[in-house]
């Protein structure tokens, strides 16, 4: 009952946010000019009549406000328009390129969370020890390492010098590793995933460690100890649950951003993902593509943060009931 109302409230907030975001994106980008003129700019000998004709074909002759609602209507029918540089339907492109982004982002997030929980807990339980210092040192180095610099070094060592992993692309064009698309895909994922995980692991480890130290200081942990629970059980059943709350929020953010955070990774590894596509779209001022990707990233982000909030509330009864 209370949970239901909470979820409903979050969803309505999300809807309002999406509406605002879409308006911002639309009016910002459309204030820049007529995309058809750009589309035909390279074509010599196009008369103004032709521009008007094609503009009308794209529905660009209508007033801006009307076009906004038409655009929203199209979005609701998952019609994102057509890319100017690629001439492909933007929706299909986002799906196709976005899948590639997820292909490296999701494993990287899973890996980061797993490693961070282990390392963070391990360090927290040895606070101020040599081991803790080592972990924290590594974490700080990892957090300060510019992602692209790390990527370049990874490529130099593992691709150029050692030749173990490919440094570009999501899959081999012809010769698949061991003849399997699965292995080949995994093989291509190694370096990009390593690069993305590095930063996430650092941040998450810090988060886990700090919260674990805080939690282990809490009275209920002492209660659990006084009740004779095994240390491992205390960590697993009591402390980790508490620590997972901020981790969930952070991971929710990572998942929400996963389509958009990776232009650098995808540029370094020439990975055919949405981030690289977005950079390309901006460089070429491909309006429909910029608008489409922006709105998808925004919606994804709003959805994921909303889901995170809901999940958080399901785990922590205090949020949903207070």
């Amino acid at each position, binding site marked *: 009952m209370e949970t239901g109302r909470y979820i409903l409230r979050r969803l309505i907030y999300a809807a309002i*946010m999406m509406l605002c975001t879409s308006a911002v994106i639309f009016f*910002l*980008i459309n204030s*820049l000019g007529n995309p058809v003129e750009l589309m035909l700019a390279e074509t010599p000998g196009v008369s103004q009549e032709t521009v008007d004709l094609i503009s009308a074909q794209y529905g660009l002759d209508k007033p801006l406000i009307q076009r906004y609602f038409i655009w929203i209507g199209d979005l609701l029918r998952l019609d994102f328009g057509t890319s100017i540089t690629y001439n492909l339907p933007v929706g299909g492109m986002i799906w196709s390129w976005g899948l590639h982004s997820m292909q490296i982002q999701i494993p990287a997030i899973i890996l980061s969370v797993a490693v961070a929980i282990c390392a963070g807990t391990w360090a927290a339980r040895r606070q*101020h020890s040599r081991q803790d210092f080592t972990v924290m040192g590594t974490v*700080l*180095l990892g*957090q*300060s*390492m*510019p*992602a*692209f*610099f790390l990527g*370049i*070094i990874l*490529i*130099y060592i593992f691709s*150029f010098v050692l030749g173990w992993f490919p440094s570009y692309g999501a899959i081999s064009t012809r010769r698949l590793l061991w003849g399997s698309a699965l292995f080949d895909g995994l093989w291509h994922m190694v370096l990009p995933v390593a690069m993305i995980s590095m930063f996430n692991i650092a941040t998450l480890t810090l988060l886990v460690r700090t919260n674990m*130290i805080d939690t282990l*200081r809490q009275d209920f942990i*002492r209660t659990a100890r006084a009740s004779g629970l095994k240390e491992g059980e205390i960590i697993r059943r009591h402390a980790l649950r508490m620590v997972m709350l901020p981790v969930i929020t952070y991971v929710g*953010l990572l998942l*929400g*951003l996963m389509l*958009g*955070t990776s*232009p*650098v990774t995808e*540029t*370094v590894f020439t990975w055919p993902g949405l981030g690289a596509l*977005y*950079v390309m779209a*901006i*460089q070429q*001022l491909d309006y429909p593509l*910029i608008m489409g990707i*922006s709105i998808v*990233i925004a919606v994804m*982000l*709003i959805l994921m*943060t909303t889901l995170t909030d809901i999940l958080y509330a399901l785990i922590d009864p205090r949020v949903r009931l207070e």
Partner: protein
Amino acid sequence: MTSMNDSIDPVARPARFGLFGRCLRTSMTGRVGFGLVMFVVIVAIFGPLLTPYAPKDQSAMYAVGANARPSADHWLGTDRLGYDILTQLLYGARTALVVGLGAVLISGCAGILIGGIAGYRGGWTDEVLMRFAEFFLVVPIFIIILAVVRVLSKAVTGTAFETMPYFNLTVIILMIGLFGWAPIARMTRGEFLRIKTLEFVQAARCGGQSGRQIVLSEILPNAFPSIVVLIALEIGGAILAEAMISFLGFGDPNAVSWGQMLYFNYQSLKIWPMASLAPGFMIFITVLGFNLLADGLSDAANPRARRR
């Protein structure tokens, strides 16, 4: 836990040499971080005195050529553009610091102001401002900055802005600053909310002090240690963000930036690694310096978490 905890203050005590003194005295990471930051600052100030070359001097192209190995004239060699790598590194420190401090000046002022208002006023104002901040917290800043940099460079065509020197860099600093206020605002708000309820603030009200006085002399100084930590972190973050933007080719062509060096040189990594590794390393130690400093400050600001 033990009765000793009773004597711990709800806010940090003032120390003899301030937060910085304590950070340097008590924290190893703080000392290392401070050292690295000072190194970059010194390079930024005095670096240009150490090199005979102008920052955009491509004359090496006609002499030793591009991608030249180290020599007496060019201690670290030249890069693909025929620039002296060392000179670029030295001048890049200025850009990095200007970006970091400039962006944080903006985000710090905005964040403290907005967070302070939200935390002090509370209620409806707080709700609205924090919803607003929430939006900025989750917005994919990087992507927006790319779009805005590109869009603005088109939008200013034919206006006075177009002739402004370092326009792109200014836009990047502004954008990083404008999008960086939310964490500071949230931290400030949290501290304000917490400190506001402490009894010495109520005592100040009872003592007839105005809201402005209370904020400026009672709440803000006590909230500052936590905010400073975040600010140090954000300086590093801003430098990193500018490097990434430049790395993607959206930087200011007229500024000397480590990110831009990487952008132009990483494709020829295999021919001459120094040209990409050197600027990458500089970004790394600068950001590391600020992160370590933040870590040390955080230890100093929260004595509860300090090693006993």
